[in-house]
C-alpha cells in the first residue's frame, strides 16, 4: 500500500490490499443476472437436436410432425437455415471453427453435431419437440480411436513452431549417465463451467442485440458480424455476469443458432445448452500422449531433453494442445527437442481449457523430472536448481524475471520439505500410505491491445468503460482498484462497467492476459484524465472523458521470455486396499507479477490448484468407440472435484512485479493448475513407490499398478 498526498487529501493506494467483490452483494442475494436470465417480451426458446451418428450425412429431417406440436414455431436445419460466411480470420487470428457455423450442409463430422434447432413458445414445448424430431442419417464408418502412433498424425504450428530442435539427441542420450524414458497420458477433459452456455438474440431497429455468456463480447460480436455479413457497428453483444468460462465461452453454436432463429422469426430467441449438450458443443481439452526422454550427467545436469506430444482435433478444424511447450521455457539441455503433433478424428473440435498446453504438458515434464531426481539420488528441488537456464532454452532471449527458485525456497520452508525422507513407501497412518511431492509451474505472461474510456462525472465520481469480462476472476473489482489508484481516489468513487461490445475493442478474458491488458488501458486513460482535470474547476454535466488505446505501447514491448512461475507441493494419503487417493494438503507459492487484490487473487490460485486435484484424481471423459459418443456425458459420469475432495489448499506469492507493465501485473488465472497434478502424482509415488503416468489416478489404477516397491 502506498500513500501519497494530492490536493491536501491523503490518498491511500488500493492496489495490493484486499477488497471484496464490487458485485458481491448481487451474487449472494441472487440479484446478479446471467445471460439466460434477462426477460424479453415474446421470447421464444430454441432447443438443439444433436446427431446420433459420428460420421455421415443427414438424409432427412422430418420436421413436419414436429411443426404441428403445441407451441412449435420453427425447425431450423441444413435445408432451410440462413447461410453464413466462414471465410474470414477472426480477432484471435484464426478462421472460425465450423462447429459454430451450424446447419450449413448435410455432413455430420462427429457425434453430437447440431442437426436442428427446434424453436417454441416455451422451453418445455421446445424440449419435447426436439426429443420427438426424427432425423434420418446415411451413416459412415468413423474413427475416434486416439492411438499412440496414428499414421495420420502431423506436426502443427500454433503460437510457436510445432517442432523445435537443437543438438544431437541420440548421442547426448547415449552419453548420459542417467536416462528417463517414459510415456504419459492425460484424458479428454471438459471445462464444465457451472453456468451452461446461453444466448438470447433479437433484432432491434436494424441492430442485432445478443445477451450472451462469453469471455469477450467484442470477440463474439466480431465473429457474428463476419458470419452474418453485418456491419460490425450493427452488432451489440453484452455479457454482464458470466458463470465461469475456463476457455469454453467463445463463439459457439448457441449464439449462431439464436441469431438465425431470431432473424427468421423476427422475435427474440434464447438458446441454452443442456449440460449433456455441452460435452459435444462447448469444446474440451484434447487427450494427450506424451513421451519424455531425459538424459543427465551423474550430477543431474541435463544433456538431453525430448518432449513429444500428440493430441487430437476434429476433421473440420485444427486445434492443437501444445503440451510439449513448457519444456521450451523450463529447462535447457545440450540436445533439446520438442514437438507437438495432432491427429484428426471424427470428434468435436477441442479448444483452450485452463492452462492449455501447460496443464497436461507440466504433468508429463514435471513427473519425468521427479523420476530423474529419484534416479540421480537428488532432491527434486535441487535437481531443478541445477537446471535453471540463464536464457530461454529455445529462444535464447533473456527472462523478464524468473523467480522459480525463490518460489521453491519459500514453499519448501512453509511446507516442511527439509524434513522429508526421500524413500518411497515407508510412511503409514493407519491404513493410509503417506507421501509428499513437488513440481514446478510456469505460464506465459502477456498483454494485448485494448481500449478504455474513463469519465470524470459532474458529481465527483468516475466511470470506467472497458470491454472486459469478469468470468469469476474478480477482474471487475481489480480494475476498480487499478482505476482508483491511477485517479488518486477511493475505489468507492469509481464505477467500472464491463461486458458490452459497444465499449470498444479490448482483449478477451483468456491466456491469463485479461486483467493485465485491461488494467493497462484503464491506467493510461485515467492518468491522462487526471492530468486534464483542473483542481477546483467545475466538471460539465456530460462529464469529461478520456479514451486510451494501448496498441502502440503493447506493441513496443521488447521480446523477452515473459512468464509467471510457481512451486507446487502436495501431501497425499493412499489406501492400498481400496486404491483411494486423498490429497491431504497443498501449498502453492507463485511469482506472478504484482497482485492487485489479494482476496480474489488467492481464489484464482487456489481455484487452479483445485483444478489440479480434479485433473490428477477425477476428470476423464470416455468415448465409446462403437458409437463415437461419450459414456456418461454429465456431472455424474464426469467427476469434478467436490467439497469432500478438497482439503486445505493454500496459495501465496512472492514479490515479483513486472517491470514492463504500468501496474506490474503478469496474470494469475491459469498458473494455479500448472504442475499441480504432477505434484500429486509425485506424492503418490512417494507414498507407494509406484509411478502413475496416466491420469486420472483412479482407484483401479492404484490397485492394479502393483505392490509398493519399498
Amino acid at each position: 500500500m502506498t500513500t501519497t498526498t494530492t490536493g491536501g487529501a491523503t490518498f491511500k493506494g488500493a492496489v495490493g490490499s484486499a477488497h471484496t467483490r464490487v458485485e458481491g452483494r448481487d451474487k449472494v442475494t441472487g440479484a446478479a443476472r446471467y445471460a439466460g436470465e434477462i426477460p424479453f417480451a415474446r421470447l421464444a426458446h430454441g432447443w438443439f437436436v444433436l446427431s446420433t451418428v459420428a460420421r455421415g450425412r443427414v438424409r432427412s429431417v422430418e420436421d413436419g410432425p414436429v411443426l404441428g406440436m403445441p407451441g412449435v414455431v420453427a425447425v431450423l436445419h441444413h435445408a432451410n437455415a440462413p447461410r453464413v460466411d466462414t471465410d474470414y480470420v477472426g480477432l484471435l487470428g484464426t478462421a472460425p471453427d465450423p462447429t459454430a457455423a451450424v446447419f450449413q450442409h448435410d455432413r455430420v463430422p462427429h457425434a453430437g453435431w447440431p442437426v436442428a434447432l427446434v424453436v417454441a413458445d416455451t422451453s418445455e414445448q421446445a424440449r419435447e419437440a426436439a426429443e420427438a424430431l426424427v432425423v434420418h442419417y446415411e451413416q459412415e464408418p468413423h474413427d475416434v480411436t486416439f492411438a499412440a502412433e496414428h499414421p495420420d498424425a502431423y506436426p502443427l504450428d500454433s503460437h510457436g513452431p510445432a517442432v523445435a530442435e537443437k543438438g544431437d539427441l541420440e548421442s547426448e542420450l547415449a552419453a548420459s549417465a542417467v536416462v528417463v524414458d517414459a510415456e504419459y497420458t492425460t484424458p479428454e477433459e471438459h471445462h464444465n463451467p457451472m453456468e451452461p452456455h446461453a444466448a438470447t438474440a433479437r433484432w432491434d431497429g436494424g441492430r442485432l442485440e445478443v445477451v450472451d455468456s462469453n469471455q469477450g463480447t467484442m470477440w463474439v460480436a466480431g465473429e457474428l458480424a463476419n458470419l452474418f455479413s453485418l456491419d460490425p457497428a450493427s452488432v451489440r453483444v453484452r455479457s454482464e455476469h458470466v458463470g465461469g468460462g475456463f476457455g469454453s465461452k467463445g463463439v459457439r453454436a448457441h449464439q449462431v443458432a439464436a441469431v438465425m432463429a431470431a432473424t427468421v422469426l423476427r422475435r427474440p430467441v434464447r438458446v441454452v445448452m443442456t449440460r449433456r449438450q455441452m460435452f459435444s458443443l462447448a469444446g474440451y481439452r484434447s487427450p494427450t500422449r506424451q513421451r519424455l526422454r531425459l538424459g543427465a550427467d551423474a550430477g543431474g545436469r541435463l544433456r538431453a531433453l525430448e518432449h513429444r506430444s500428440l493430441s487430437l482435433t476434429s476433421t473440420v478444424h485444427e486445434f492443437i494442445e501444445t503440451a510439449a511447450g513448457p519444456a521450451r521455457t523450463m529447462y535447457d539441455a545440450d540436445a533439446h527437442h520438442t514437438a507437438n503433433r495432432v491427429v484428426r478424428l471424427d470428434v468435436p473440435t477441442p479448444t483452450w481449457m485452463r492452462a492449455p498446453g501447460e496443464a497436461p504438458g507440466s504433468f508429463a515434464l514435471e513427473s519425468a523430472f521427479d523420476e530423474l531426481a529419484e534416479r540421480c539420488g537428488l532432491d527434486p528441488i535441487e535437481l531443478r536448481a541445477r537446471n535453471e537456464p540463464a536464457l530461454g532454452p529455445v529462444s535464447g532471449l533473456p527472462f523478464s524475471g524468473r523467480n522459480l527458485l525463490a518460489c521453491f525456497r519459500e514453499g519448501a520452508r512453509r511446507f516442511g520439505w527439509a524434513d522429508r525422507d526421500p524413500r518411497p513407501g515407508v510412511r503409514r497412518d493407519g491404513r493410509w500410505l503417506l507421501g509428499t511431492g513437488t513440481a514446478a509451474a510456469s505460464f506465459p505472461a502477456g498483454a494485448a491491445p485494448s481500449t478504455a474510456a474513463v469519465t470524470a462525472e459532474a458529481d465527483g465520481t468516475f466511470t470506467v468503460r472497458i470491454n472486459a469480462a469478469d468470468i469469476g476472476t474478480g477482474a471487475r473489482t481489480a480494475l476498480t482498484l487499478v482505476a482508483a489508484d491511477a485517479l488518486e481516489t477511493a475505489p468507492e468513487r469509481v464505477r467500472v462497467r464491463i461486458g458490452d461490445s459497444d465499449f470498444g475493442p479490448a482483449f478477451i478474458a483468456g491466456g491469463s492476459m485479461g486483467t493485465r491488458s485491461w488494467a493497462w488501458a484503464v491506467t493510461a486513460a485515467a492518468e491522462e484524465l487526471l492530468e486534464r482535470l483542473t483542481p477546483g474547476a467545475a466538471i460539465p454535466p456530460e462529464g469529461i472523458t478520456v479514451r486510451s488505446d494501448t496498441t502502440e505501447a503493447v506493441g513496443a514491448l521488447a521480446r523477452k521470455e515473459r512468464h509467471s512461475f510457481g512451486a507446487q507441493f502436495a501431501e497425499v494419503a493412499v489406501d492400498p486396499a481400496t486404491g483411494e487417493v486423498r490429497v491431504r494438503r497443498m501449498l502453492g507459492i507463485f511469482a506472478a507479477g504484482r497482485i492487485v487484490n489479494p482476496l480474489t487473487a488467492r481464489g484464482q490460485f487456489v481455484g487452479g490448484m483445485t483444478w489440479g486435484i480434479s485433473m490428477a484424481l477425477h476428470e476423464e471423459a470416455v468415448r465409446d468407440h462403437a458409437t463415437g459418443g461419450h459414456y456418461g456425458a454429465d456431472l455424474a459420469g464426469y467427476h469434478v472435484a467436490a467439497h469432500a475432495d478438497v482439503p486445505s489448499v493454500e496459495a501465496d506469492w512472492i514479490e515479483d512485479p513486472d517491470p514492463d507493465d504500468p501496474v506490474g501485473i503478469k496474470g494469475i488465472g491459469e498458473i494455479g493448475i500448472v504442475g499441480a497434478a504432477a505434484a500429486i502424482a509425485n506424492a503418490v509415488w512417494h507414498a507407494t513407490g509406484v509411478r502413475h503416468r496416466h491420469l486420472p489416478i483412479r482407484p483401479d489404477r492404484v490397485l492394479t499398478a502393483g505392490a509398493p516397491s519399498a
Partner: protein
Amino acid sequence: MAPAPTSTYSAITLHINGEKHTLSVDHRTTLLDALRERLDLTGTKKGCDQGQCGACTVLLDGRRAVSCLQLAVAAEGREITTVEGLAEDGRLHPVQQAFLDLDGYQCGYCTPGQICSAIAVIEEHAAGWPSAVTEDVRPEAGPPPLTDDEIRERMSGNLCRCGAYVSIVQAVSRAAATTPADRAGTGTTTRAHGADTDSTDPHGTEAAA
C-alpha cells in the same frame, strides 16, 4: 403467456419467500423453471437440470432440495425459500455475509445453491443429524463438532467449478459460529417481507415480460 388450465396445464399457488404466487403451469414445468421462467426469480440457478450439481438448491419447508427434480405442481402447499428470500430488510443473512466477506465464490453461479445448502447444513447439524464422516453417530452423542471435514462432507452436493471450496468452507464455518440459533434455518421462520417478485427491473430497457 399463461395459458388457461387444460389437461396439460394447472393453476397452482406457490408460497415463495413468504408471498403467494398464483400461476398456470405446464405440468412438465419444474419448480426451477417456474421460479426462473415464470416468476422472474432467477437467483436460483440451473447448472445441470438433472440433480447432479446443486446449483438449483432451495429450501422446501426448511429442508434443502434440488428444484430441478421437483415439479412445480408438486410444490403447492410447501413453503419455498430461495436465495432472494434470505436477506431481511436489506440485511444479509449471516451465511450470505460470510460468503461476501470471505470471497466464498468466484463466478457466483453456484453461489445461491451453496448458500441455501449451507443454511440447511447449519440447521441439520444443530439438530444433531450425523453425516458420513461423523465419528460417533449414537443419538445420545449429540451434534458432532462442526469441523471443516463435516462441512465438506455435508456440502458435497453443491459443485463449484471455479474451485472456491476452501473459502466456501471458511464462510460456512464462520457463519455457523455467528448464526443465532433462531436464524439458522428457515424451516419455521415466516418471512413477512417479499422478495423480488414485484416488477423491479434491474436491467431497464429490454425487460417487458
